[in-house]
């Protein structure tokens, strides 16, 4: 969670709870939100490594709050993050491993494994559809997140279909 927090601070100083709310609004309800404790811990680590600096601000009726801002080193770390490309998801797949080794064990049938996995994917797809329907229409980022997950799932389902076609021919 370090870099997204740095990114939010690139806009201007903010305190921990503000950052949590910003993340929620940005990513929408589909995204599992970090709790405020995780955010404070991460902010503490970022400060230790010199990427942000905190300043105590007095509040009249409450304990002081700490407002953080990005340092030059933090800005550099963000630049480097944007510079990198990310690994593709799902290069290794636990399900594929099961499918590959199942025949040697005599403990599981490949087609039954595929069917079971398909049910799981379909149910996930259904939950994603419901999340999309419940999400604020105008939150484009949140909708893109859900759509990305759905497209990945569609690819997984297509691949299961290929597996089934190939493996049934062998039977």
């Amino acid at each position: 969670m370090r870099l997204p927090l740095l990114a939010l601070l690139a806009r201007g100083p903010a305190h921990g709870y503000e950052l949590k709310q910003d993340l929620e609004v940005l990513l929408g309800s589909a995204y599992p939100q970090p709790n405020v404790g995780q955010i404070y811990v991460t902010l503490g680590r970022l400060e230790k490594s010199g990427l942000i600096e905190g300043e105590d601000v007095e509040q009249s009726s409450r304990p002081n709050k700490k407002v953080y801002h990005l340092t030059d080193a933090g800005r550099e770390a963000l630049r480097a993050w944007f510079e990198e490309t990310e690994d593709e998801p799902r290069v290794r797949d636990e399900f594929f491993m099961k499918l590959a080794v199942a025949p040697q064990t005599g403990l599981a049938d490949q087609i039954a494994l595929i069917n079971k996995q398909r049910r799981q994917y379909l149910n996930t797809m259904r939950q994603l559809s419901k999340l999309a329907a419940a999400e604020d229409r105008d939150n484009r980022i949140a909708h893109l997140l859900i759509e990305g997950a759905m497209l990945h799932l569609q690819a997984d389902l297509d691949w299961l279909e290929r597996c089934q076609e190939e493996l049934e021919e062998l039977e």
Partner: protein
Amino acid sequence: MSDDSAPVLRADGPTETDERPALRAEALVKTHYGEGAPAHAVRGVDLSVRRGEFVAVTGPSGAGKSTLLHLLGGLQRPDSGGIWLDGECADRWSEARWSVERRKRIGIVFQFFNLVSNLSVADNVELPALLAGVPPKRARAERTELLAELGLTGKERSMPGELSGGEQQRVALARALVNRPPLLLADEPAGSLDSKGTREVMRLLSRFHQRGQTIVLVTHDARLASAADRVISFFDGRIADDAELDAGPPPRRAGTSGVLELELRD
């Protein structure tokens, strides 16, 4: 195939005074004889669809799922096996009888809409009502209501060719539903639409389903299939799996579903 996929009435369904399935098929077989080797499109299918149920049939292209749908709608005849609509055996129905039933009891939508290109939107929707003997005034009222429902008010005088794919499919849906058929069959209804059109079709099918419409949908699109209560996986002319999807309410709290996890690296 798992043993819980038997096509029987399920005890956990809504209690109904009349438990005849909306649609039942038994041992359906259909082989296409063209050039080359015979194609065994449907190789012994048993299927039962409850009233109000939304069933999706998915599978790779060429698996025979469209042929299955055509058999269920009487657009093709099985080599053997039987079909019951609402408990009534359809095996001896003539072509003419099937045409009548496709106006009254079965609505069908297709991938390429199949609208009459030289009739206006309004006429396309009213035509099946008029053919079914509905008085013109009522046909017009039904048409107006459906087009409004489908967000097509103002397009009555348009010709199909002037509409987007998504709009044409909505007209096709209105036409299929104008006689309030108990059963809706949909053959790849989003197959030629973009993702916005697909979402639209999905939303509308869900809405009609929530009002009690029985739907059998053939699609290779898992997003569309996931709108259904039950998904049948069709492979090589046979049912490979038949699964009820989770019926639970949509997850409310942020992230509690755990459906989506972005990897935010630490």
